């Protein structure tokens, strides 16, 4: 079994690895969702992501363990052209919008379109309407987003990274939808440093 999963993983159940990427316009809460999911923390003033952060978290299903390798991307428009570096080869994508910001919903639609066109054909896409705690300032109706999601075969949830609502559920729903068969070939994850052969001298 893989040696790099860490001591917490139950040795008995099979662990499935999936690459997941978060996409969406700037300031919709992508990093907050990931931080809530991975570390169960929330920062009111999360700094904008300039680059792409890598985190992992495991979800326990009834019949399997799913380990997400998560790439949290930069949402600012100027970095948009760099997104393919991260969604290429991803099994799942969470496209996030802010329910108080209709522009971000339009943005989410264009991210979905880009994924459908240029991403993996079997990619599981979830549409997440974040900041659901700000009901009073809602500008994107749940029904509208749900209809759009249904039309495009996307999972759809409204989440709140702030009060943690639906965050875990979002990842669990994705985990359920991901194909668990055939089992992934068991191969050694290679070590960070390649094996140092017995070296002579410094070369």
């Amino acid at each position, binding site marked *: 079994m*893989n040696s*790099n999963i*860490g001591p917490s993983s139950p040795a008995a159940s099979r662990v499935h*690895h*999936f*690459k997941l990427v978060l996409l969406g316009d700037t300031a919709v809460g992508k990093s907050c969702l990931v931080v809530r999911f991975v570390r169960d923390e929330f920062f009111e003033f999360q700094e904008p992501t*300039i*680059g*792409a*952060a*890598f985190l*992992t978290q495991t979800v326990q299903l009834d019949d399997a363990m799913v380990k997400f*390798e998560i*790439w949290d991307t*930069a949402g600012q428009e*100027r*970095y948009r*052209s*760099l997104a*393919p*570096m991260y969604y*290429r*080869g991803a099994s799942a994508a969470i496209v996030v919008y802010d329910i108080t910001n209709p522009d971000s919903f339009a943005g989410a639609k264009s991210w979905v379109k880009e994924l459908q066109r240029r991403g993996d054909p079997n990619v599981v896409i979830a549409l997440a309407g974040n900041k659901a705690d700000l009901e009073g300032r809602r500008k994107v109706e749940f029904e509208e987003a749900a209809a759009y999601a249904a039309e495009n075969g996307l999972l759809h949830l409204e989440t709140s990274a702030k009060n943690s609502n639906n965050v875990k559920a979002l990842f669990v729903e994705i985990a359920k939808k991901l194909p668990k068969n055939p089992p*992934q070939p068991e*191969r050694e*994850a*290679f*070590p*960070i*440093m*390649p094996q*140092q052969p017995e*070296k*002579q*001298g*410094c*070369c």
Partner: protein
Amino acid sequence: MQTTLQPIEDEVLVPLQPDEETEDGRVRNREAIAKIRDIWIYSKVRARQEEFTQYRKALVFTGTWNVNAKGKEEPLDEWLCADWATQGLPDLVAVGFQEIVDLNAVNVAVDNKTQQRSQVWTERLNATLNQHANQPERRYVLVAQKSMVGLLICVFVRFPHYPKVQYVQTSQVGVGVMGMMGNKGGVSVRLQFYDSSLCFVCSHLAAHRENVTGRNADFANVFSKTVFDVGEAAIREVIRSGSLSHFASQSTTVGLADHDHTFWLGDLNYRIDESMPTEQILKLSETCQSSRHVPPELRQLDQLNMERSAGRVFAGFQEGVLHFAPTYKYQPGTDMYEQRPEKKLRAPAWCDRILWMSQQAEHVQQLTYSRSERPNCSDHKPVYSSLQLTVKDVIQEKREAIYAELNALLSRYENPQTLPVIELDQVALDFGPIRYQERKTLSIRITNIGSVVAIFRFVPKTDEVGICKRWLSVKPAFGMLVPGDPPLTVNFTITIDSYTAQLLNSGREVLDDIVILRLEDGRDYYITIKASFARSCFGMAADELVMYSDPIRSIPIDPLERAKKIDPTNTSTALCIPKELWRCIDAIYQKGLAEPHLFVESGIPEETAAIRECLDTGTAFGRYSIHSYADTLVSFLSSLSSPVVPTKLFPTVEIDSQTIQSSARRLIEDLPPIHYNIFVYVISFFRHVLAFRDRNLLTAAKVARVCVNSLAPGRDLDNTAASLQKRTGMQLIVLHLLETSSI
């Protein structure tokens, strides 16, 4: 006007394998990681080189002689063994010859006579060096020889050191007719002596007194094109001795600059500047020869000394002071400079020279630098120099112990369970306004704030090859930080060359980029680069420049913005030539036509930058030297995005006295209107310049070269015979136009 060396390749990491996605979802490049790790160890080991290196002295004899296709009988020991009595037997002997065969067309094109002649010369060297070889320690063994047409280099080692000579390679570079043929160029031998890498270059550079730029260019050519594919084992030695760029680039080739010591000998053909009359040079040279004293004024006018102190050639090389009389041109078989009435009177010159370049200057000490009076059958006297080298001798066991120690230290900080964490002090670099030819550097600092080793490298964006745009360079492009290491500085440098300026001026490029720093097993950081181009008349199209009577800096690049300011259909305001051209020429015309060495000497970089700024902003000139205006004029013309004379208008027929008139007329008739104005204006100006030739010391040939370089650079011409003919034809036409009064 300036010949610059090609920049030595940046250290860029080029893994053979693409990045791969690991099973745990991370993007990683094992090869890159392994390399960066090794590079870290190498550089740390090298920093402690004193702990595992013994130094030993080695005596090197170097000699050079242009034999003028003669001299197969005269003894060589007066030259080759000149220092034996005073310095002892040399450990290494490197001798270069030029013109071992006649440089006639057949020999230049077909290299068979050379083989036979180089055998003869090698055998004669061998015999001379071994004439007293009654004991093994006095014996000399040939290490390598390399010849190319007239050039030959031979390297011998004294027998006791023979086992310490490794990784011997040779190389040749032709820079003669059509590029690859060898009537001029260089042949080289490189080797590892104990643990120091040495290289010996024998070269013959472009002839003719006025062709200084040709010699400089030949040097730059031979310097940059001399490469040795040394193979895996030797490259490890090169890397060990410090050249990490090889490690990074996978290359097993080394260049001259990669050696601990490089010796350059040959007929470099530099003459004595013509500001001193030929008769006077001759007289002073004769005095040198009889008194063995070189007057400083003669030495100062040596073209190589002048070019080197101006930084135009042999950058990084050292040469001893010339204490011997000029070695060329002698009446063969005599000790008299050639001045027979039937021969062309030539000013004597120090054509034959020996220079060296070292990674550590204190490791070379020149003991002698002189010429030999015998053999004298050639029109050149042979030159020699003995140098004492300090060579490295590595104690392997000690080096391995240090390696093991560092490896152990490193493995304490390597833990696949823990993610590396770094901190960048900034991720957005705003360079502000940047001008043409300007170079600005900003940097970021990377600190490892985690508990494991952090390896980073800059990676290309999807579907791109380079890590950044061509006007930007990032250094270092990769690195490794152990926890507790001091912050590492990465420099970002923007340079605006004329190609970039052309793109920027036409709005096809903007100074904006995102560079991706990948922390292996961690995350990607985006570093945004921003600058604003201060618009310049350099790198623009002449046809566009004439539309603006306002300073170019005030003209927006954006065509929509520009349209608000200028009506392109209103041609009544169009100028007949760019005003910037007029300003430069007028400045020279007003006060500088008689300036000695006009258009030969370079300008002062600070002044040329200031002049460009005046042209771009429409402000009045300050007080600058005439050479700075001349330099600016030439670089302005050659920066134009389409040359004044496009390559398609170069003559297609061979230019001779029959065809020159009609070809010149056709060329002028076919020029597009604005280009026609510029061409006629510049040629007329240079005719004025030539009217002052007594005082500015120019010749029509020199001016023609300046004109062709700036008006008709023919950038897209290659080195084929047809292209060469076109270039020569262009030169002749310009010369013709300069010398006749009609245009």
